[in-house]
Each structure stands twice: as structure tokens, then as C-alpha cells.
């Protein structure tokens, strides 16, 4: 996605300021207890990656529709989750956000650099589930009668649509024991994954296989609205005061 360079993308503002600016005041407490980094809705892909990679707090994307602010209650708070982001569907789509989130985990010592590619690929699939089957309300490609052209067309149209594209995607990173747990959530109607298939030639159904192969843990909950991935943390990471 091509975006113009913003003026405010990398600006760190206090919780009160973001509350006033975005109407989030009703959700103070677990969400706005920290400083908030605002990601401008028109940030370019390099800025999206940089803002997420260097976040020290909650990142809120200005591109999230005000109509969905109620859903921000779904984002767990607390110091145990050192990374939290609320992204618009449009921002979450693509490699820029994924690269930024994984870079954050590596930069803060939660993942070994050697695991970058593995984590990026698994997270890309979790984000794709949240975007396409969650917020954009699309079934699996197999349920589209195998018509890939039609599937890609309607998905592209919905991504570009201001209403669909402004729905929020939530991402949190939480160290638990020896694992870094990445939660990805959406505000869709839920999604029931199709059963695993042995048909290698099918057009769809590979995302879950990729996640299962690349992540230590894959868990789908809340009716398909949350995907949780677990990755082993690098040796020497300090979690809750102890070295793993």
C-alpha cells in the first residue's frame, strides 16, 4: 500500500492528549494508562514499520474508525504486555506492520534474530486471518467456489473501502514463561476454520498449516476472533525478573 509521509506519525503524546484527540477518553485506565504513540492514518509503509518497531507503549492508529472505538475495550492492558497496538485493517494489511512488530520483539530481546523470518511468516498468516476472515467478513477461498479471481477482487474492494478498512485489529505481545505470545484480534463475526485437508492442490487452507509449522503454539479463541501464536524466546531473555 502506498501512503504519503505523515507529519505526526512518530509523535509521542500523553494519554490525555490522545483521549481528547480521538475520543478515547471513555476508555481510560487499562488502555490509556500509558503514553500513546499515534500512528497517522496516512503513514507510509516505512513509517508504519518504524513506529511499531520502536514503540515503548501503546500504538493507536488514527485510521481506526471512531465508530469502532467501543471495541478498544477488548485490548488487554497491564505491564505484562509490553507491546500493544490498535491498527486499522488497512494498516495491518501487508508486511510493513508485521515487520515492525517482529522487529520490536527482536529489538527488545524477546526473539532471536535468527527467528525473524519464521515469526514474520506466522504473524503474516495470523494477521491475514484477522483481516480477511475477520474484519472483511470473507469466507475461505474454497467456499468461494474456487473462484480466486472473484475472491481477490472482493477482498481488494473491501480493503479499499473506508468502512471496512477502518475496522480495528489488535496486537499484543506478552512474555509467558519461555514463550513470547503474540495475540492478534479482530472485530469480525467470528470464523470457523475449515478442517485440515490433505489435498495439496487446493487453492486455500494453507495459512493454518504455516502457523502450526512455524510457531510453537497456535490457539484460536473467541469464536475465531483471536489468534495466539507462541514463539520460543531467545536464550538470555529476562522475563519477569528471571533469565530464561
Amino acid at each position, binding site marked *: 500500500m502506498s501512503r504519503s509521509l505523515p507529519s505526526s506519525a512518530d509523535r509521542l503524546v500523553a494519554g490525555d492528549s490522545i483521549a481528547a484527540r480521538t475520543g478515547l477518553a471513555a476508555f481510560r485506565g487499562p488502555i490509556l494508562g500509558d503514553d500513546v504513540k499515534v500512528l497517522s492514518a496516512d503513514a507510509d509503509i516505512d513509517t508504519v514499520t518504524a513506529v511499531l518497531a520502536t514503540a515503548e507503549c501503546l500504538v493507536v492508529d488514527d485510521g481506526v474508525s471512531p465508530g469502532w472505538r467501543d471495541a478498544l475495550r477488548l485490548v488487554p492492558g497491564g505491564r505484562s504486555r509490553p507491546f500493544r497496538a490498535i491498527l486499522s485493517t488497512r494498516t495491518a494489511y501487508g508486511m510493513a506492520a508485521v515487520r515492525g512488530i517482529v522487529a520490536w520483539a527482536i529489538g527488545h530481546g524477546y526473539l532471536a534474530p535468527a527467528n525473524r523470518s519464521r515469526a514474520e511468516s506466522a504473524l503474516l498468516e495470523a494477521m491475514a486471518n484477522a483481516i480477511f476472515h475477520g474484519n472483511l467478513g470473507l469466507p475461505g477461498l474454497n467456499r468461494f467456489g474456487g473462484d480466486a479471481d472473484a475472491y*481477490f477482487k472482493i477482498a481488494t474492494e473491501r480493503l479499499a473501502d473506508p468502512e471496512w478498512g477502518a475496522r480495528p485489529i489488535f496486537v499484543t505481545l506478552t512474555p509467558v514463561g519461555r514463550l513470547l505470545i503474540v495475540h492478534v484480534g479482530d472485530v469480525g463475526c467470528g470464523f470457523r476454520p475449515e478442517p485440515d485437508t490433505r489435498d495439496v492442490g487446493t487453492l486455500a487452507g494453507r495459512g493454518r498449516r504455516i502457523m502450526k509449522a512455524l510457531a510453537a503454539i497456535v490457539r484460536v479463541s473467541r469464536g475465531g476472533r483471536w489468534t495466539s501464536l507462541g514463539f520460543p524466546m531467545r536464550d538470555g531473555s529476562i522475563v519477569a525478573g528471571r533469565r530464561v
Partner: protein
Amino acid sequence: MPCTHTLRRHDRSLIVALAGDFTFAENVTFLQIVDEVVNSGLEAITIDMSALATIDSAGLSMLVLLRDRLAKIGGVVTLLHPSPPIARILEVVSFEQIFTIVR
């Protein structure tokens, strides 16, 4: 890294070199390539993956789509020189069962 592609004809085959991230975002461009390839009449297509950084499930679906369309005219697709991370993804989804993969 946005995906770029170059097409190069070699005897009776066509080499499509992909570079960057081959994800859902490339669907419009790649489906045009599929049409071009199918209409070219060439039956041997090689996808050069040596410069590919990332492929996702949508990118994999597009490769299957290309394979299915070519199969209807008796064509075959070869995947050439995937980098280790890409090769790992291809292995996970058992693409060696439906593509010739040259490492």
C-alpha cells in the same frame, strides 16, 4: 519490499523472476501475469524465487492458480532456487507434490 517481476523468454519456456514480498497485495499484478503466460502459448514456466523475501498463503494460492490454468493447456510450472525461508514454507505446504522444485 514491494514485489517486482521480470519476464524472460528462454527457448520454449518463460522465466518469471519474482523479487520482494509475494503476498496478497500482488494479486492484481500476478493474475495479469497468469493471463499473459497462459496466452503466450508457452508450456514450460519457471518461477525464479531466488530474490523472493516473503511468500504468504495468498501467494501460494496464486502459484496453484497458475499451475491449474497451465495444466489445462498441458503446461507445467517449475519453482527455481527458493531461499531457505521460502523453501521452508514450500515444504510446510507440501508443494513438492504438485510442483517441480529446483533448489
